[in-house]
């Protein structure tokens, strides 16, 4: 209750009602496109979008000017794979975790956009650390299909969804084998059967959206495809074979995957599993595949590059943590990038409900590898790209978020210094051009307990 009240207060006081024209000047600017930082750059944003960014940019009259001398300016961090906003607490706190429904009846039909809570502390903590957007995936319940993920912003308002049902997520490695009853072949049969059931159902799909009428041209108004959670989009006579394994909703949810209208994020780590995913592309050419994890990707980097499949990779895995990660090395991302793979950084099975702010630290580590003999790192500009525009592009949103190119959503962070060195902090954060509050549960606790000596009233009165 207090938290809700606080959020409401922030909405009405700290956040301007409408975005305005802002010029951030004198900063060290990096745009997120892979290029390095430029001294004395200017970033102009207007009506929630980037107008221009670079060394020679005209400052519009009437713009609010922010002097960022001595600071760094970049696009906000895009968490390439996360469960941000789905849980406040991960363990032993009933009601505060919506990452997976382990005893629910549905799988592919699950839609996390209905569960994102922007008031959860992890959203606030990550916003305070310059994470402005996140790819949010459900965790697989009893099926290999986890359901449909969303792209969110971390803004201090109750409207977090950038794109609902932005992708389907499936486990096809060790975890998938477990969900499928204990083996990878079982997971692959389940996968193909699911696509078969979706194909059968597709024949009955109406070419209209659930509310009626044709799909609008503007993608933001589109529901990706017809909303697969709406049974109405399938004609009541939609018949199915008798040997189906999926619920009708789950099968319907896979229709857009089959059509290539919705990306399919596939979690695999092992080199041979990665090749199987590449094989799926030949078997089902319409699939829009994205690999998640990919710890052994460097072993098959040229094959991945040829396939054109993007990889949202775990950045610094270097342990044989499982039998599907025996060849893990921190040079994985650098080697894949060098081979031409479209790489981005994400965090799967890595405290991804709350610690996605580690991505900039991980990216910095990949830069550090460039100074280790025999290791393959990335340049600073490439490292920033891995946590900004690269994940956006992997999800097909490169034209919208993740860079300071003109027309992109104005997610901008002013940092105290080099953002890839985690000693530096986000000092000002803009999402859709709106400046965000950076206080949170943790900063309030610091204020309360910064000085411990007893005072006239208990600590509970310090607020």
């Amino acid at each position: 209750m207090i938290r809700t009240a606080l959020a409401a207060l922030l909405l009405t006081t700290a956040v301007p009602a409408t975005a305005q024209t802002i010029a951030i000047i004198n900063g060290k600017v990096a745009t997120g496109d892979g290029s390095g930082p430029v001294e004395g750059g200017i970033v102009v944003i207007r009506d929630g979008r980037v107008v221009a960014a670079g060394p020679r940019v005209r400052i519009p009259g009437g713009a609010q000017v922010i002097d960022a001398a001595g600071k760094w300016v970049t696009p906000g961090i895009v968490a390439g794979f996360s469960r941000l906003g789905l849980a406040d607490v991960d363990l032993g706190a009933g009601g505060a975790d919506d990452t997976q429904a382990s005893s629910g009846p549905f799988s592919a039909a699950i839609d996390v956009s209905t569960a994102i809570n922007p008031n959860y502390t992890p959203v606030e903590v990550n916003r305070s650390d310059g994470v402005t957007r996140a790819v949010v995936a459900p965790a697989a319940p009893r099926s290999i299909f986890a359901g449909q993920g969303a792209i969110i912003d971390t803004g201090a308002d109750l409207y977090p969804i950038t794109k609902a049902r932005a992708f389907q997520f499936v486990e096809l490695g060790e975890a998938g084998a477990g969900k499928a009853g204990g083996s990878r072949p079982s997971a692959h049969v389940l996968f193909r059967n699911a696509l078969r059931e979706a194909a059968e159902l597709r024949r009955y799909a109406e070419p209209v959206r659930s509310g009626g009428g044709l799909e609008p041209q503007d993608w933001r108004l589109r529901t990706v495809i017809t909303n697969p959670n709406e049974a109405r989009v399938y004609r009541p006579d939609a018949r199915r074979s008798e040997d189906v394994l999926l619920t009708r909703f789950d099968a319907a949810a896979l229709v857009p995957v089959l059509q290539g209208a919705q990306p399919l994020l596939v979690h695999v780590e092992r080199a041979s599993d990665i090749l199987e995913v590449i094989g799926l592309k030949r078997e089902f050419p319409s699939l829009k595949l994205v690999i998640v994890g990919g710890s052994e990707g460097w072993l098959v980097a040229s094959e991945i590059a040829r396939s054109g499949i993007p990889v949202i990779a775990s950045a610094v895995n270097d342990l044989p943590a499982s039998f599907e990660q025996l060849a893990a090395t921190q040079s994985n991302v650098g080697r894949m990038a060098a081979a031409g793979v479209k790489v981005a950084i994400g965090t799967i099975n890595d405290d991804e409900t709350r610690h996605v702010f580690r991505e900039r630290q991980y990216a910095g580590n990949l830069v550090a590898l460039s100074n280790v003999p025999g290791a393959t790192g990335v340049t600073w500009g490439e490292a920033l790209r891995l946590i900004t525009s690269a994940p956006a592009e992997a999800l097909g949103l490169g034209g919208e978020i993740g860079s300071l190119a003109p027309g992109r959503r104005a997610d901008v962070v002013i940092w105290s210094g080099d953002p890839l060195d985690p000693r530096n902090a986000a000092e000002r954060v803009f999402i859709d051009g709106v400046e965000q509050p950076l206080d949170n549960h943790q900063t309030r606790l610091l204020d309360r307990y910064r000085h411990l000596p007893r005072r006239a009233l208990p600590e509970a009165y310090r607020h």
Partner: protein
Amino acid sequence: MRAFAVAATAAIAVAAAGCAANTPPKKAAPVVRVDEDPFPSTYVAYPGVPTLIRNVTIFDGEGGRIDNGWISFADGQVTGLGAGPQDAPAGTNVIDGSGKFVTPGIIDVHSHLGDYPSPGVESLSDGNEATSPVRPEVWAEHSVWPQDPGFSRALINGGVTTLQILPGSANLFGGRSAVLKNVPARTAQGMKFPGAPYGLKMACGENPKRVYGSKGSIPGTRMGNIALTRATWIKAQAYKRKWDKYYGNGGDMPERDLAMDTLMGVLDGKILIHNHCYRADEMANMIDVSKEFGYKITAFHHAVEAYKIADLLAANGICAAMWADWYGFKMEAYDGVQENIPLVHNAGPGACAIVHSDDPNGIQRLNQEAAKALADGQRAGIPNLSEAIAWQWLSANPAKALGIFDKTGSLAPGKMADVVLWNADPFSIYSRPERVWIDGALMYDANDPKRRPVSDFELGQPGEGDVK
């Protein structure tokens, strides 16, 4: 030599003298001392060459910084360090440290390498004897798999030279710890830090009550945690009385109890308490329990709310081993703040902050965790912080908490030459270990693939001997 043999001889001598002075000699059986070191360290340092690193920046681990300095070591020990130029005797390996940094090796007081190794499969999961909440009889060293590839990552990427392997936190009394040199060996004994005292892992809070409450047995609540902990110490006191009497007066040797042996070692001050505890109120409870039964808590581990009672911890001389920014993964971690480490550090005389990992990945980046904590503390305006001061969190303070600060944990003449040469300022994200020496032996050299350990498990596997 094994300490017990000497002690046994002395005890027999005392007993014999007492007999002679008072009563006519009866045929009393001589007092037999229990062997307190039945799995002795077989670690032997590897050979090194006399080395001088000069033109280098040094953090000595005790708060000192030397710019443009030098450090020398030979025969396994630090032989000197200072500022300015330094000549080397013939036969010395001289390294130009321009642009580079030297620190003591990092010491992690909270690791599960070997007892929760990679790969993390059921067959190798040996960290929690979760069959009873009171298991002080188990010893972590008997779970340590020396072939865990994680040891090598901690060395080459993390600069970790010493680490304490703890049992997990399912139990109120989890068992004894093992302090290891991060030097590969065929056996756990071959890694054991010679002369390091044992630790005992204790736990409070959510884990014990969850594990046993779900089985329908005590503890199912926090009050159950404390009750069973106290009841166990009452037994340990009775056990100690029996043995004190025996060692003092002779007579029939009491029946040994492995669990109680460990607890008696704590009450005797020989075994150090490492107490997993998150919440401030629970740490206060555990401090009172320790006073009730007359033992000392050496360190609280995790201690996510240590900042709320930093004054209490300092007043009692208790260290807190912490993460830089973990929070919220369970309720007792809900109030994590990023300034926890510097706030604990800043609590005045007796304060002791430690950066710990509890994680096979985090142990590779403890310097980065210290860097974040330092930066957060400085931003919050906490006074008297610096990189040199903060390195205490990584070496001197953990060494003190392990009872080995007389041997390692800082760079001082006569101490073990556990030394890391970093290719840049280790508080920068862009820094990595270039070379690591343990007892003066070069155990890692970034420029020499032959100076990079590869565990048995990784031989013949994809990526064998890779840079990792």
